């Protein structure tokens, strides 16, 4: 137990982009706020409900980001603050109690409720932590009430998931003694099942996933828990896990054949899985992934790609596109660069790659137009305007909503990048 994972090669000389200077920009940021995470989290945790305490803007944002309209009734809603609340005419605790009661009456299936803070609730300093504790007292054992902030002034897009998971770790995960592995970060159910099978084949039994599919089956945490991040944006969650004594397993992220093998290997080494057993559990998957990438490599090798900052998945994706598909990286923008969690990704990026953190969207657009990349990865607000200027684009939000991790999704992930180019070729005559 507890063997440190060895990074490849010599640590004394900086490799790849590890010591590369980063272009830091301040200006208009064309990004979602953390509330957007609700769009996938409410589907992942089947008996949880997300109640944003915010403004009409918050309600409109989630509604618009959620594929414009979802056809089943979603497990999220907004408690819209109005003038009476702001003027102090209404008691905000009473108002929140009333809203929560109405909601829980309507949805008797809900067993975990997140009160989600927003820009307005943060600015007026609404104490949602206290509110969650008070409401928990009223509604337990049926419903546990937690809180986190998805506000735009504090969180960018995927940081909402980070805040949500950090709240779970701090307040809602049971203690455990025996050694266990916990995979952290929302991944699709199919990927979770695949990883579970691979870990079982290695002989790892006590494996949990955070978040679990059900509020009741969240993994327990203890001093013998080792956790590995499946998503690169989980800063606060990692810190909360550290505080509970769990140990971080440094690894690259499980994107592509190499990424997935390196990620699995990092976990296997911590639990002293013998090399032959590891190979037996992963070789077939690795080969399948490599095979699935061949056709896409033909389409993508040598093509250039430009990343606008969005989900913090940009660095691992850039590594995958470069290392496994031979694409050239023009600029890799990310809203926030967490050097420690991304160290192994930075090592694998080619030296000299332009890395940017933060955003001034108009200037970044200027750079993009200047560089004329073959493919631009960007948010929904920019994609059509760039297409109209003749660029091929990949909406970055799809990379968050699609199963992309693991061996059997490597081909699909490459396909997401190949499709815009394929389409452009097909429609060349239009």
């Amino acid at each position: 137990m507890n063997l440190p994972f060895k990074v490849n090669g010599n640590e004394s000389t900086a490799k790849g982009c590890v010591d590369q200077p980063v272009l830091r920009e301040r200006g208009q940021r064309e990004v979602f706020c953390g509330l957007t995470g609700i769009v996938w989290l409410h589907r992942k945790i089947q008996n949880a409900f997300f109640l944003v305490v915010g403004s009409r803007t918050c309600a409109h944002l989630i509604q618009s980001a959620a594929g414009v309209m979802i056809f089943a009734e979603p497990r999220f809603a907004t408690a819209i603050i109005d003038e009476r609340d702001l003027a102090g005419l209404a008691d905000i605790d009473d108002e929140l109690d009333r809203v929560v009661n109405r909601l829980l009456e309507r949805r008797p299936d809900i067993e975990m409720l997140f009160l989600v803070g927003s820009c307005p609730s943060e600015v007026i300093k609404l104490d949602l932590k206290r509110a969650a504790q008070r409401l928990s007292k009223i509604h337990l054992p049926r419903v546990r009430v937690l809180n986190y902030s998805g506000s735009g002034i504090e969180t960018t897009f995927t940081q909402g998931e980070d805040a949500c998971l950090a709240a779970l770790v701090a307040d809602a995960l049971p203690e455990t003694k025996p050694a266990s592995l916990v995979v952290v970060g929302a991944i699709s159910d199919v990927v979770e099942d695949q990883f579970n099978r691979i870990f079982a084949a290695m002989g790892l039994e006590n494996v949990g996933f955070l978040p679990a599919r059900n509020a009741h089956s969240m993994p327990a945490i203890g001093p013998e828990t080792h956790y590995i991040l499946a998503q690169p944006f989980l800063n606060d969650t990692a810190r909360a896990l550290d505080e509970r004594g769990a140990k971080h397993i440094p690894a690259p992220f499980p994107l592509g054949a190499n990424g997935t093998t390196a990620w699995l290997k990092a976990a296997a080494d911590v639990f002293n899985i013998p090399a032959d057993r590891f190979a037996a559990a992963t070789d077939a998957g690795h080969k399948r992934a490599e095979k699935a990438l061949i056709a896409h490599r033909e389409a993508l090798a040598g093509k250039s790609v430009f990343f606008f900052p969005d989900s913090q998945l940009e660095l691992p994706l850039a590594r995958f596109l470069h290392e496994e598909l031979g694409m050239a990286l023009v600029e890799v923008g990310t809203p926030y660069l967490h050097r420690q969690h991304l160290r192994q990704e930075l090592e694998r990026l080619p030296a000299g790659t332009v890395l940017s953190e933060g955003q001034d969207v108009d200037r970044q657009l200027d750079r993009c137009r200047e560089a004329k990349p073959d493919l631009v990865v960007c948010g929904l607000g920019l994609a059509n305007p760039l297409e109209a200027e003749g660029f091929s684009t990949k909406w970055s939000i799809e990379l968050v909503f699609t199963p992309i991790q693991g061996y059997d999704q490597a081909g699909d992930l490459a396909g997401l990048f190949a499709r815009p180019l394929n389409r452009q070729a097909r429609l060349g005559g239009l």
Partner: protein
Amino acid sequence: MQLTLWTYEGPPHVGAMRIATAMKGLHYVLHAPQGDTYADLLFTMIERRNVRPPVTYTTFQARDLGGDTAELFKTACLDAYERFQPEAMIVGASCTAELIQDDPGGLAQALKLPIPVVPLELPSYQKKENWGASETFYRIVRSLCPANADASRRNPKSCNILGPTALGFRHRDDLSEIRRLLERLGITVNVVAPFDARPSDIAKLGDAAFNVILYPEIAENAGRWLEKNCGQPMTNVVPVGIGATRDFIAEVGRLAGIDTTEFLAQETSRLPWYSKSVDSTYLTGKRVFIFGDATHVLAAERMARTELGFEVVGIGTYSREYARQVREAAAKIGVEALITDDYLDVETRISELNPELILGTQMERHIAKRLGLPCAVISAPVHVQDFPARYSPQMGFEGANVIFDTWVHPLMMGLEEHLIHMFREDVEFHDGAAPSHLGHAAQKAQLPKSAIEPASETVPLAEAKPTPVAGEADWAPDAEKELKKIPFFVRGKAKRNTERYASEFGLTVISVETLYDAKAHYSR
């Protein structure tokens, strides 16, 4: 604090964006936290616009709050002016920036930019999208159009068209349809605004003799200002439907001094004949519920009754600003208007009324799916499907054709409906079956709620089993079976009536005889 699952309207600054994005040469600097830029995708994705909305957001973060958010706003304003060189600017705050009270209007004035800067005060915690659009348009008109009541050099046969915006429900095609109609009448269109108008065009609004107000929610305030300050009368009829289009033609004829009798005699719409043809007999008295913005609800109410021969069982709107007009229309047909922006209230009302067709928004489409009812969309909030590639106006004679098709399509065809009534136990032709031309997918949507939806207390009456209640008559098994043969959309009513009849006559058991006795009793 209001529990909101879906919101019918965005915040007021999105209304302002709809004006800014519709116009050219205008730039909007919006004091807003990061995240509020989501609004760009409404325009680039839903409406498929090929350029970014002309909006600069300050995107402040928590670390900016204690210090220099005002400075951030000024820098954003200057940068936007430098980069985009607009003819005019509008400036304002979103909901969060409103709370930090930086006064974007004052800050922008202090920059002394060499262009007109229109400050917007849009109270986010009170008002909503349409109000924001209306206020913004009004402020722009007021600031950029000189007051001038001198009508002497105006062409009496000229007008402005006011109201169409970006992200409007069929605004693009309504505008084409009405512009063409006006031109065929011999009326010159001076300026269309805000759609494709430049600030310099706004300054020329006073050159027209009168204003055509297409969407009162957006343009009525500006129209009233122009009426008062430029002496321009404005239209009151919104030309949605055959009757309304005829009235509109007569109205603009009066305003322009044109005799429209001959023009009206040559009108070309298929709706009147399609609606009169025997194939449409089955539409007679179909019970419809109508909900949406006030303009489209009022128009749909008139069309539904007088042009398709439906029975309107309920109407409502989320446009509180037009509650009075909707209440009046409801009173005329003896129903109660539902004025709400609460989706849950609308769902409850629809469950109670159990209509045969819902004319609503994308939200009512959710409700309709849940309740297994047909639905056609008549109003914003918009969806990507509301920007079809084909020409698809709602206004004018072609608009009436489009509406006829849109409303009739979700319904059962006449003979199909009869066959279902006759052969109630046919496995494919049962109550739950969707119109056959809508295919299998539509049928799936009508599976029992439990299959789609974990929890729902709004089980439609049609599915409510007759359950004995203390002090009330019990349903005999054969009567219960007979009840199921009654078409589902009137079954709830039949059930209630029979139970009322049984209790009035002191019966303890409801038999098949009781069911038909009650039917005869209440059909007197």
